[in-house]
Every structure is written in C-alpha cells, then in structure tokens.
C-alpha cells in the first residue's frame, strides 16, 4: 500500500478531469434521505458525517436491472443485450461497512458460478472509500468485527485531514493503476506523522454497552434455537414491508419479472431482475406449499441467514453493522436489541 497526499484544490481539479471520462457516484444529501447518486460537479458531493440512509448496493445490484430483451415475430424469437451500457465508473465516499458489504456480495455473486451482470458492474467501478471517525447513532460495525478506519475492500481510501488536504491510501492493484495515470495531482506526504496524529486524537469510537454482544455466543444460540419464543415476541410487530432488506447493503435476494408490449407486429419486452425480500410472504409461496407461512418465521430467516447460514456456507456474517435496518424500520424493530438480548440470555446459562 502506498500513501500520498492531495490538496482539496487538486482534488477538485482532478474531479473535473475525471468527470469527462468516468461516471462518478458520490453521497448526496437529498431532501428526505442521503443516498449515493451520480454527480456532475465536485460541489454536489455531500460528505455526510455518518453513513448514507441508502447504501451504495443499488449501483452494483440495481433495484430493477434489465437482463436481456426479447422480441417475438411470428415464431422467431430474438434475444439481445439490454441498452444499459456501463462505462467506467468511480464510486466515491464509500465507508468501511459498505466496502465490507461489497466483499460479502462478491462471494455470493462469484463463488459457485459467476453472475456476469453483477461482476460487470463491479469490475468497471473504482471504489474510493473514506474512513469513519465518529459512529452514527445506529452504527454498530465494531460489534460485528469491522474496523471503521480500515481501507479493507476499497481500491483507494481518502482521509479528510481537515486542513484542506486528504490523505490518500492506494490499496488495490486497481487503485495503483488509477494512481499511475493521475499521479501528477498528488504529493508525497512529508509531514505524515503529524497529520495522522492530529487525526487519531479526534478518534472516538466507543459504541457503548447497549451495542455490545458476543458473536460466538449468538452463533451458538442460533445453532440451537430455531424454535424459540424470542422469534414470535420480536416479530410480533413486523409488518413485512421489506424495508430492512432493501436498505441493507448485504441483502441480495431477487426475483425476475418480464415487461412486455405488443408493438410493430411483434411482441417485445425485457426480462428484469428486481429486488425481493425474505420478509415477503410470496418469497417462498408455491402453488401448493408455503414453508414460511407466518411473519415470525420470515423474520427468523432473516436473522438466521445473516448470523448463521451465511457463516455456515461462506464463513462470513452477512451483516456489517451499518445500522440502517434499525434506524428505518417503520415499527422500530431493532436488530441490535435482538442480538444483545440473545447474547445476554445465553450468558445466564
């Protein structure tokens, strides 16, 4: 890993150049929520203090993504690529939790069979991340083993030194490639120790007792408590809206749907991949059979999948502690409360 410096002015100039070549996606403060969006000028970047309400996942697994077009004229069927051409992209301001979530998705979409649509979007995107120095009110990344200042899973990390300069960590080979093209915008970090120690002095990342739980204890409890009153008790309020899954940076379940019209003597349309959620009853409903008929079972599936099944299958959790599901669940179901209560309950035995 190499480390450089860039001044805010140079970063602005660099961005102006980059915008002519790359699509640039960055956090933007919208009217209601903050989200990642395509920007057209440096000034649009939001730099919010904490993570965005919506995760960057939608740029890798779009909520509705065209997979292929079909056209049927008489008996002839023609299949073709959809129009969504993806040029080179930079996604800026990704936080360590969301970068970790990308790594989790990478395994799902590349292990045991490669998903070409996801990997195309991943491969043509350079991830420029930023560390977190203060936790947001719902964050609990350190409780699930994520270091909020690490550049893991990013290509480049930009750290705002708050003196009109950014520290630039070049992490991956992709980051090195990028750097070698634009190296003239960057400086050597002569006074690196001083800059960093100013920064680390500010670092307060204590989450508090109420966000502490023991992952090993939880895994063990989940191994043995498929049936437990906790599920019904916790999920009693759940309205199955799916917001938790849609906001979650690691939830990747999807469905297919066909959109079609009759036009110019032929029947034509698009097969789309759309987000889905295990919180919905139709998720597992077949014409004759419903393996998860009640909301508490669907809620259990979500927790089991994140903290047990994913671990058993991929040796990784499927939660990065971003806190989005607990901040935006409309009925206030709180994942951390569930995990803490499991952890405490088990300690009593």
């Amino acid at each position, binding site marked *: 890993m190499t480390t450089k410096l860039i001044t805010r002015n140079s970063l602005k100039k660099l961005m102006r150049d980059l915008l002519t070549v790359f699509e640039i996606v960055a956090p933007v403060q919208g009217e209601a929520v903050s989200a990642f969006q395509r920007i057209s000028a440096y000034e649009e970047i939001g730099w919010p203090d904490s993570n965005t309400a919506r995760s960057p996942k939608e740029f890798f697994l779009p909520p509705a993504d065209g997979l292929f077009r079909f056209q049927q004229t008489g008996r002839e069927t023609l299949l073709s690529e959809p129009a969504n051409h993806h040029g080179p992209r930079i996604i800026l301001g990704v936080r360590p939790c969301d970068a970790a979530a990308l790594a989790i998705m990478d395994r799902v979409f590349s292990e*045991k069979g490669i998903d070409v649509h996801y990997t195309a979007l991943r491969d043509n995107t350079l991830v420029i991340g930023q560390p977190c120095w203060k936790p947001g009110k719902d964050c609990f990344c350190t409780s699930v083993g994520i270091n909020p200042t690490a550049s893991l899973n990013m290509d480049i990390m930009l750290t705002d030194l708050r003196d009109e300069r950014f520290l630039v960590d070049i992490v991956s080979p992709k980051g090195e490639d990028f750097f070698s093209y634009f190296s003239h915008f960057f400086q050597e970090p002569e006074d690196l120790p001083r800059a960093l120690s100013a920064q680390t002095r500010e670092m307060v990342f204590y989450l508090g007792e109420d966000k502490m739980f023991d992952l090993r204890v939880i895994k063990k409890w989940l191994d043995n408590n498929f049936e437990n009153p906790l599920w019904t008790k916790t999920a009693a309020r759940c309205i199955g809206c799916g917001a938790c899954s849609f906001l979650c940076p690691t939830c990747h379940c999807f469905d*297919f749907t066909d959109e079609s019209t009759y036009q110019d003597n032929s029947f034509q349309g698009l097969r789309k991949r759309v987000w889905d959620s295990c919180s919905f009853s139709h998720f597992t409903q077949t014409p004759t059979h419903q393996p998860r008929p009640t909301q508490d079972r669907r809620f259990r599936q979500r927790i089991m999948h994140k903290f047990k099944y994913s671990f058993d299958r991929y040796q990784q959790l499927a939660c990065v502690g971003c806190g989005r599901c607990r901040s935006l669940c409309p009925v206030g179901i709180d994942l951390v409360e569930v995990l803490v209560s499991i952890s405490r309950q088990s300690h009593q035995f």
Partner: protein
Amino acid sequence: MAIEDIIVETPDVKTFRLIFQERKIRRHFSFKAGQFGKYSVFGEGESTFYLASSPTWEGYLECSVRRASKVAEAFHKLGVGDRIGFRGPYGNGFPLPELTGKNLILIGSGIGIVPLRSLIWNCLDFRESFGKITILYGAERVADLVYKRELREWESRRDINLIRTVDPGGEEPGWDGRVGFVPMIMREIDLLPEKSWVITCGPPVMIKFVIEGLISLGFSPERIITTLEMKIRCGLGKCGRCNIGKHYVCQDGPVFTYAQIGEFPNEF
C-alpha cells in the same frame, strides 16, 4: 428451443417435447436424471420443471408441466412449433453410482412421477446394472395418472414390478389397479430394506407419511432419497429464495437423502 410435440397426459398436465435450434447444443447437451431446467415463455416469465426425459435419449428433451401457475398456464397455451427459452441443467440429480447394483423402490404420486420417469428410463437402459425395480405410483383419480401409456408398458415388462393406485373415490369402472393412499398401499406390498434404496417424490404430505412408514419398516435414512420442491428462481444459488439452513435447494438439491434432510431446520 422449439416445441416438437405435445402430449396431453391428464386434465392439467401436458408433456412437451423440445429440441434445441442450435445443432451444436443439441449434440452436446447432457444432464442427469433428477436435474431441472428453467423454462421461459417470454412475456410471462420463467418456471422450474424437471427434465422429464431420460438422459440417454438423444436429440430432444421433454418436460411435463402441471397447470399450476401463470407461467405453466402460458405453457399450456403453446402449440407445436412455438419457441420457448431454456437454461439448465441445474441441481444435483439422483446419485446413480450409489444406486448401481441395488434394488430400487420408487414411490411417487401425482406430478411427482416426473423426475422418477427420467430415472426409470435411464435405469432400464442399463437394466442389468440394477437389482429388482419396484414402482409404486398413485394419483387422486384415474384421470390424474401421468404417463398412462408408459405405465402400461412398464406393467407389461417382467423386469419391473409396477403397482398403480388411486385415492379412495378416485377409481372408475374398469380400473384394475389398487385403491388407497400411497403410504397405505406401501405397507401392503412387501418391501424389503436389504440392498434397497428408496426414491420418493410427490407432495410434502405424501413424502412425510411414506418416510415415516419406511423408517418403521427398517429402512435407513441414508438410503431414502427424496426431492424438495421449494420455490426456485435463479437456480444458481444467488437469489436466496430456495435457502434452507446453509443449503440452497437449487444447487445442493433438489435431491437429498432423508439423513441430510433430518439435519435441516424444519421449514420445507
């Protein structure tokens, strides 16, 4: 793929004979009995059906579709010459190497005969590699028995023991099979666990009672094979839909032994 032939099996099941338009794929496509495909009627969507023909039949594929969903409904409206989309094969299929040299007991009901049919014809092509073959097949009514012509053919063969049954009330004049639910009839015929593997496919209730019966007859869970027909979308272990415990039915299944299923969380 193009539809080459359509056979009406029952009031709500049709079998479609399909051929790949590309000659190269037609020549090189191969699969195992018990694997499934994803079939598209463009504009309506994609659905999951077994490859119902034997892997040993060359040049075409068959699938048998029960009219149970929007896509299945659309399938039933298609005619000879119409085109459909296909991807596959997916899933693990039946463990043929383990079955070789054993007595096979195949128990199915209704549309559950579909994967068994592929296996049966596959085994008959290598008849001397297997011991006794017993087939117990039932349906709600006589009209609901799928593959009637083939049932007659299997019945007339001396190297297969086929028992047909219909649920009480489902018989009709001239019915020469048995009357009774599959799990009950299973107890009336002498099934011997020695050197036998059981493969059972059908609705979850039937499978449940069949397996309970088999266990009480002394069959070991390692040698009882069944299929789990959870809802399947992607077939690739990505969409999360068929997840059960750490398994994805679309990749690790749909064929499982009862011993494996015993370790699953109870939601299938």
